[in-house]
């Protein structure tokens, strides 16, 4: 299989314009005749469904939540980047492009990232017009804050709830289109499979979570915007229901999965407090604007933070990366935290934590200013830990947060299955091996509002899909397979709960495919995962029936897919013997412990093709850099 990224020719800055001109259009009268399925209602899915409906397409939109507004984009805190240069601090489309490419450790496509930077400004315009209450200056203009990996201030925000406000904006646009009749919304409906007919994506199979009914839905094209897979680690900052099922099923149907080992471990999360822990909570990266990260210089120092004098503190990010300091990119900040904790200098229970201290900022700006900027985050921290961060420093530790890997897509956001398009975190496209803060919201909305509405028309105009019925044997077969899996899960009636398997898998992945990876560890994980999976299918206990709301059954299906997907992640991590971005192979580091890339051998996207025998086939898409010089990332 030859991977054709369909990157337009011509100078970088003109590619998207030229491409839009070259794409075929569907005339307004014909748009009505096309049905498009959109799965997921986060930033990417909701914005795509709304915009496609505005254009005149018939949209069927699916969410496993009770309302489209619950999607996990809602939890994004800090902000959204855009190259507006409102601060006059030297920002530009080029700089946002460069920061993103460099932040991703040169493992993303130039053309995609440049387009993202171009569109970023339109996103802010659109969201403001929708009534998103971004933070403003006294003169009424928009204000900005700084984020990791950048030396300009280009992040737009709505207190610590930017994701919520952007999602509610997209949800309002979606609601408008539902009211108009352009979008048929299916809530409480989970996608279980993709249906491919004659090589084209023609529909999906779903389960109604309230009634248990398994149904088929046909369309002319399918759009997946189903998020990332960080819950493979069990403990992550993702919402509990976030899962890999939709993208993994598409992978099993022939879509290539790209760079699955590229996962982001976020440096600032509240540390785990016990075995019962169900998830980890992020503390926004924006806190690093004013908070200073430190640990005691001495190993095993058990004094209270206030009793440790300035001279005995190690502000290790400021020490190691003087030019970016506490705003070093996420992968670097996370690894540094692990390093000091591994040295025995971590704080809090188990020594798995570092301080994020606001004392200086409070002295400089006053408590009120800090409350205005981060009040809700401070309150959340106190609710969870019982400690007041205005008085004592926060304790933070890295946690799985985002996954850069995802289904492989071309410049049109189409996967290797014609007609199957993938948006947002579910695709692999723009963040390379490490995503910069405030860029996920940007990418989700760029994909949904501005890219897919244009590129999907080209597919439909060129393909002219013939009508297809859900009575087609492929649909029937997929429905029967989904029903059989549900029956199987309910029939095992073993001794262990679904969560116990998920925890076991998660802790294995965290140990061997987490913040640092090595050959022996990955091989160990690859030997162990099939054992856990085999036990799952013999010994899991899923109570209840298939004809009711059955949350254990929902979980069981998702964990079953994680148990297969985890293997793919480890295979990818094992094959990529270089370190890059969030993928740190212990065998490949610079003398001072930074990630050492191997551009000669690994400057490509690793796209994996499913094989029934369990050994996926690797396809490489070479990454060509015509506009930036590959360099060792330096934030020193």
């Amino acid at each position: 299989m030859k991977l054709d990224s369909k990157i337009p020719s011509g100078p970088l800055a003109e590619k998207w314009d030229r491409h839009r001109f070259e794409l075929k259009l569907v005339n307004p009268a014909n748009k009505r005749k096309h049905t498009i399925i959109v799965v997921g209602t986060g930033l990417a899915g909701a914005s795509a469904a709304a915009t496609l409906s505005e254009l005149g397409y018939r949209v069927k939109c699916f969410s496993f939540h009770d309302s489209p507004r619950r999607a996990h984009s809602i939890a994004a805190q800090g902000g959204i980047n855009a190259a507006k240069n409102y601060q006059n601090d030297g920002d530009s489309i080029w700089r946002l492009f460069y920061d993103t490419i460099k932040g991703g450790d040169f493992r993303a496509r130039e053309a995609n990232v440049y387009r993202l930077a171009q569109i970023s400004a339109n996103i802010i315009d659109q969201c403001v017009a929708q009534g998103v209450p971004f933070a403003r200056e006294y003169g009424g203009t928009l204000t900005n804050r700084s984020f990791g990996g950048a030396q300009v201030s280009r992040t737009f925000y709505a207190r610590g709830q930017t994701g919520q406000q952007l999602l509610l904006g997209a949800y309002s646009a979606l609601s408008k289109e539902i009211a108009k009749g352009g979008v048929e919304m299916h809530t409480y409906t989970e996608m279980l499979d993709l249906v491919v007919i004659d090589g084209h994506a023609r529909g999906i199979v779903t389960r109604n979570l309230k009634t248990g009914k398994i149904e088929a839905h046909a369309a002319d094209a399918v759009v997946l915007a189903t998020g990332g897979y960080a819950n493979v680690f069990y403990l992550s900052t993702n919402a509990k229901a976030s899962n890999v099922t939709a993208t993994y099923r598409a992978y099993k149907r022939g879509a290539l999965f790209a760079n699955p080992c590229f996962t982001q471990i976020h440096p600032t999360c509240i540390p785990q407090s016990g075995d019962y822990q169900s998830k980890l909570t992020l503390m926004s990266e924006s806190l690093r604007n004013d908070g200073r990260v430190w640990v005691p210089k001495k190993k095993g120092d058990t004094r209270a933070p206030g009793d440790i004098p300035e001279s005995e503190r190690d502000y290790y990010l400021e020490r190691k990366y003087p030019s970016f300091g506490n705003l070093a990119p996420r992968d670097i900040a996370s690894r540094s935290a692990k390093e000091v904790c591994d040295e025995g200098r971590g704080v809090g229970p188990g020594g798995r934590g570092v301080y994020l201290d606001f004392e200086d900022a409070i002295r400089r700006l006053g408590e009120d200013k800090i409350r205005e900027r981060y009040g809700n985050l401070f309150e959340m921290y106190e609710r969870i830990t019982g400690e007041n961060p205005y008085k004592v420093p926060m304790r933070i530790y890295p946690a799985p947060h985002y996954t850069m890997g995802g289904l492989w897509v071309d410049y049109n956001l189409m996967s290797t299955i014609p007609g199957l398009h993938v948006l947002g975190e579910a695709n692999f496209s723009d963040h390379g091996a490490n995503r910069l803060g405030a860029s996920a919201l940007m990418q989700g909305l760029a994909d949904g509002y501005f890219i897919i509405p244009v590129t999907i028309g080209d597919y439909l105009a060129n393909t002219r899909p013939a009508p297809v019925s859900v009575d087609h044997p492929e649909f029937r077969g997929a429905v029967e397979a989904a029903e059989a899996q549900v029956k199987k899960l309910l029939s095992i009636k073993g001794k262990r709960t679904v969560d116990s398997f998920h925890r076991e898998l998660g802790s294995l992945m965290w140990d061997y495919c987490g913040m640092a990876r090595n050959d022996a560890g990955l091989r160990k994980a690859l030997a162990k995962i099939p054992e856990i999976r085999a036990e799952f299918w013999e010994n899991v206990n899923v109570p209840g029936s298939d004809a009711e709301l059955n949350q254990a059954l929902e979980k069981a299906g998702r964990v079953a897919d994680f148990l297969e997907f985890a293997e793919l992640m480890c295979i990818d991590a094992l094959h990529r013997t270089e370190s890059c971005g969030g993928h740190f192979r212990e065998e490949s580091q610079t003398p001072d412990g930074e990630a050492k890339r191997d551009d000669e051998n690994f400057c490509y996207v690793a796209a994996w093709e499913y094989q029934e025998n369990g050994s996926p086939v690797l396809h490489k898409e070479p990454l060509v850099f015509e506009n930036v010089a590959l360099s060792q990332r330096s934030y020193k």
Partner: protein
Amino acid sequence: MRLTLHVWRQPGPDAEGKLVTYEADDVSPHMSFLEMLDVVNERLIEKGEDPIAFAHDCREGICGSCGVMINGEPHGPLKETATCQLHMRVFKDGDEIYIEPWRAKAFPVIKDLVVDRSAFDRIIQAGGYISVNTGNAPEANSILVPKEAADYAMDMAECIGCGACVAACPNASAALFTGAKISHLAALPQGQPERAQRVEAMVAAMDEEHFGHCTSIGECSAACPKGIPLEAIARMYREYLRAKLVGAGK
């Protein structure tokens, strides 16, 4: 800690429900309320019993999925704290806790503690948006919004759609939820063109969904995990009156 839980169990929308008592041992004060329920559920499954169904997702107090009555109070005893953010340190050893679903005609029970809140979506679909298609937006800074207006809009826009306001209200009114969205959009220049028709349509939708009327009791705001103020309801009334006086489209 050792706690006694009295949990509402109802197998389905049309089935009879009842309170069932469970003993929860070894509860850590650092657990969240939902983690405590997770542990109870793990044990129920191990015993071959049906686990307690409850809605939840982000567990960071922002998605609005979770929410149960805890000893008669929506989201429990802590102010401005969603159920998932409530931690067991507010309880003490030996406590009895009554856990029930939101009770409102407009929120029918689906199973156990899970209720159907789709009525909220339909209220938003009636007009809780600004009609601007993608691509049709002016340069962001060409719309100046005074900081006070932006802050006020943000205060109102923080609603997470959990339904605690309805559950707290003796009339099961959705006035705080609806008023918050109306106030958010009415405060901004972008919201002006549809200001009058929006409030009329959303208030009508609220009635159609069989929510009760507001009689200014104030329980809604007290229970709101985001602290949406009663001002949202007062503003809704003013907007409604204004719409009736000046007419739609003004």
